[in-house]
C-alpha cells in the first residue's frame, strides 16, 4: 500500500511538472549596460535569412542576433500576438508583412521607432512604401525590407504565335484574353482567383483604391468606392464573357495549367520567377515580363502584392541595438546584396536594389533587362493604407468573391465589393472603433 502511495505521488508530481513546463516559457533580459554584449532574437521566415545575419554577427561582436525561423507571415503573427498577451516570450525583432502592421500596432506589439535613428532611413525608400510603415501618421513602426510591385508575366512564344502585342492598357488585355481563348477554348490568359485577397488588393491599389483611411480619431473604410468597383466590374465582365478562368490560383490544377500552357499569363509580383520555376519548370525561357496593363496609359501605376518590413517588438529591452541591426539589414549595400542573392527577395531600398540586382533570375534568362523593368515599375507603386482589420476584409473577400466567381455574373462581382465593405465596417464598429 505504501508503495502504491509513493507511485501515485510520483505520478502526480510528473503530471504537475508536465503542466509547469507549459507555463514557464519566460525570457530573461540583459541589463541595459551599453558595453555589455547584447543578444537579440529575430523571428523571420524569409529563406536563408540566418546566412545574411551571420555577416552581421561576424562584424558586430557586441550585438549578436539569433534568427528564429517561422513558418510564414500568418502563423508568426498569431504567435507574436499570443506572446504579447502573455506578457513575455516575444522576440526583439520581427519580420512583418505590410498589411499586418496595423493589426500588430493595434495590439501594442510593436515599438514606435520615430524617436530613434530609424527615421534616418526614410530617404532610402519610395513614398508609397514609407507610408505603409508609418500608417500615414507621425509614428514609425518598422523599417521596410522588401516589396512586391505587380507586373504582367506572359508566355512570349504564345503571344508571338498568335501575333498579339503585349497589352499596355486593360482594354488591350481584355482583347488579348479574347483572342487567346478563341484560338483555343481550353487556354486562358489568366484567372480570377477568389483565394488571393492580396492579389485583388494590389489590382485595386493600382486603380487608385486605398481601402482604409485615418481621419482624426476615426477610421474610414473605402472599399466600396469607384476604383475597386471599376476593378471588380472589369474582372466580372471578363469572367461572365468566359474569356478569363474563374478558378483559384495555387491549386494543383492551376500549377498544371501553367506548366502545360493552358494558362499563358499571370498578373503577379516581382517574386513570380520563384513560383513559376517551381510549378511550371517545363516552360523556362518562354516567359517574359512587362509592366502592368494600365487604366490610364499616360500615368503608369501599379500595386503591391506581398512585401515585408522589420519591426521591433514592444517587449524588446534593446530597442536601439535592434534598430541598429534592422537599419543595417535593410539599407547597407552588403546586407541588401546578401538579401537578394541568398534570401531571394526584392529589396525595398531603391538605390541598393539597383546595385544588387544586375543579373535576371535564371527562369528569365531570356530577358536580361528583367530587373530594369522591375526597378521602373517599383517607382510607380500607388500609396495604400491598411486598416486594423485587414484579416476580416481578406476573409470576406474569400467568401464573397468565391460566390461571385462561381456565379460568373458581372453584377455579382459588384455585390461582392459591397458585401466586403459591409463586413469590414461592421467588424470595426463591433470592436468599438470609431468609423466615419
Amino acid at each position, binding site marked *: *500500500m*505504501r508503495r*502504491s*502511495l509513493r507511485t*501515485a*505521488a510520483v*505520478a*502526480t508530481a*510528473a*503530471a*504537475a511538472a508536465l*503542466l509547469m513546463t507549459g507555463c514557464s516559457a519566460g525570457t530573461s533580459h540583459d541589463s541595459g549596460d551599453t558595453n555589455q554584449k547584447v543578444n537579440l532574437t529575430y523571428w523571420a521566415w524569409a529563406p536563408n535569412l540566418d546566412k545574411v545575419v551571420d555577416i552581421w554577427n561576424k562584424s558586430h561582436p557586441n550585438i549578436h542576433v539569433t534568427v528564429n525561423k517561422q513558418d510564414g507571415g500568418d502563423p508568426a503573427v*498569431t504567435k507574436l*500576438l499570443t506572446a504579447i498577451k502573455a506578457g513575455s516570450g516575444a522576440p526583439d525583432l520581427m519580420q512583418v508583412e505590410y498589411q499586418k502592421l*496595423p*493589426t500588430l*500596432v*493595434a*495590439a*501594442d506589439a510593436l515599438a*514606435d521607432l520615430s524617436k530613434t535613428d530609424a527615421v534616418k532611413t526614410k530617404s532610402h525608400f519610395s513614398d508609397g512604401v514609407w507610408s505603409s510603415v508609418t*500608417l500615414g*501618421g507621425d*509614428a514609425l513602426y518598422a523599417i521596410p525590407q522588401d516589396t512586391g510591385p505587380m507586373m504582367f508575366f506572359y508566355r512570349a512564344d504564345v503571344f508571338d504565335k498568335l501575333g498579339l502585342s503585349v497589352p499596355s492598357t486593360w482594354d488591350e488585355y481584355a482583347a488579348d484574353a479574347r483572342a487567346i481563348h478563341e484560338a483555343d477554348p481550353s487556354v486562358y490568359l489568366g484567372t480570377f482567383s*477568389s*483565394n488571393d485577397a492580396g492579389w485583388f488588393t494590389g489590382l485595386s491599389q493600382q486603380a487608385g483604391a486605398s481601402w482604409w483611411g*485615418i481621419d482624426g*480619431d*476615426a*477610421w474610414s473604410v473605402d472599399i466600396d468606392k469607384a476604383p475597386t468597383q471599376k476593378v471588380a466590374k472589369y474582372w466580372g465582365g471578363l469572367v461572365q464573357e468566359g474569356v478569363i478562368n*474563374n*478558378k*483559384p490560383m*495555387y*491549386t*494543383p*490544377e492551376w500549377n*498544371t*495549367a501553367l506548366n502545360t500552357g*493552358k494558362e499563358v499569363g499571370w498578373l503577379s509580383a516581382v517574386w513570380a520567377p520563384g513560383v513559376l520555376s517551381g510549378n511550371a519548370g517545363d516552360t523556362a525561357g518562354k516567359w517574359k515580363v512587362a509592366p502592368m496593363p494600365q487604366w490610364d496609359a499616360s500615368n503608369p501605376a501599379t500595386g503591391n502584392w506581398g512585401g515585408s518590413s522589420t519591426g521591433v517588438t*514592444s517587449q524588446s529591452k534593446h530597442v536601439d541595438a535592434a534598430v541598429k541591426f534592422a537599419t543595417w539589414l535593410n539599407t547597407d549595400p552588403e546586407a541588401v546584396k546578401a538579401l537578394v542573392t541568398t534570401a531571394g527577395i526584392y529589396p525595398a531600398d531603391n538605390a541598393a536594389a539597383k546595385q544588387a540586382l544586375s543579373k535576371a533570375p535564371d527562369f528569365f534568362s531570356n530577358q536580361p533587362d528583367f530587373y530594369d523593368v522591375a526597378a521602373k515599375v517599383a517607382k510607380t507603386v500607388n500609396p495604400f493604407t491598411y486598416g*486594423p*482589420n485587414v*484579416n*476580416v476584409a*481578406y*476573409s470576406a473577400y*474569400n*467568401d464573397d468573391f*468565391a*460566390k461571385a*466567381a*462561381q456565379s460568373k455574373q458581372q453584377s455579382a462581382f459588384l455585390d461582392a465589393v459591397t458585401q466586403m465593405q459591409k463586413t469590414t465596417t461592421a*467588424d470595426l464598429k*463591433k*470592436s*468599438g*472603433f*470609431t468609423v466615419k
Partner: protein
Amino acid sequence: MIETQGAGMRRRVSFRTRVLTPYAMLAPGIVLFVAFMAAPIVYTVILSLQKRTVTGLGLGANSHKTVFAGFSNYVASFTDPELLGSVLRVLLYGVILIPTMLGLALLFALLLDSRRTRAGGFSRTAIFLPYAVPAVISSLLWGFLYLPDVSPFYDLADALGINAPELLSPSLVTFAIANIALWGGVGFNMIVMYTSLKAVPSEIYEAAKLDGCSEVQIAWRIKIPIIAPALVMTALFSMIATLQVFAEPTTLRPLSNSLSTSWSPLMLVYRDAFTRNDIYSAAATSVVIALGTFIISFLFLRVVQKRAFGQED
C-alpha cells in the same frame, strides 16, 4: 508498550490506506482532467462573457480594453445567419454520411463474421486501413482526385465518353466531403461492430441452425439485435463527429469556389478566433455548439435507449 505502538502504527497505516490512497491514486487523473478539460472549459465560458473595446484609432498602448459583455456574444451567436447556415449544411452532410457509413460498416462486419468468408484477416485490415490516414492527408488525396484537370478518373471518363460532373461544384461538394469521411470512417465502425459480434457465444448460432435458420436470417434476427448497443454507440459517435467536421472542408476550401470560410460550425469558430481575432465571440459560439451537441446526443440516447438496451436489464 510495544504492542500498543504496533497497534497505533497499524491504525495509522490503515487510515492512510483507507482514506488517502484512493485520492492519491486518483490525483494524476484529477490533475490532468482539471488542467486539460475543466480549466479550458471554464476559461472558454469566461472568455465568452467578455469583449474588447477600443478608444480612438486603436493604435498603440492602452487603446484596448477587455470588458464584461454579459450575454451579448451569445445573442449574436444565436441570431447569426452564418451559424444557422453552417448547422443546416452540416445536418445535410450528416443525413448523407451517417446512414451510408453505418450501413456499409454493418454489412462488412456481418460478411466478415459469416462462416463462409475467405481471407477475413486481409479484408478486415484493408477496410480498416483508411482510418489510419489523417483526415488532412486523405482530403488532399481526394482533392487531387476531384479536380478535373489533374484527376485520373476524369481522364478515364473522357476515354469512355462519359461527361463526368464536377464534384467540387456547389451542388455536389457536400457529397464530395461526405465521401472522404465515409472512406475514412467505415473501417473504424466496422471494427467496433465486428468486435461485438465476436463476443456473441456460438451456441446461439448452433441452436438457430438446428431450427433451420439461414445465414441471412441469423444475421437479421439474431446478430443485429444482439449488437444493437454497439450500433447505438457508433451512431452517437458519428453524429458528434459530423457536427465537428472541420479538417476535410478546410483542406478542400482553397481548391474551389464552393466552400466558404464558415461552411461548418467549427470553421466559423476558427475563422472568428484566428482570422478575425475575436476569441470572445468564437468562445460563445463554441459553447453554443457544445451545448447543441450535448442536447442532440441526450435526445438520441433517450429515443433509442429502451429499444437497444432493454433486453440487458
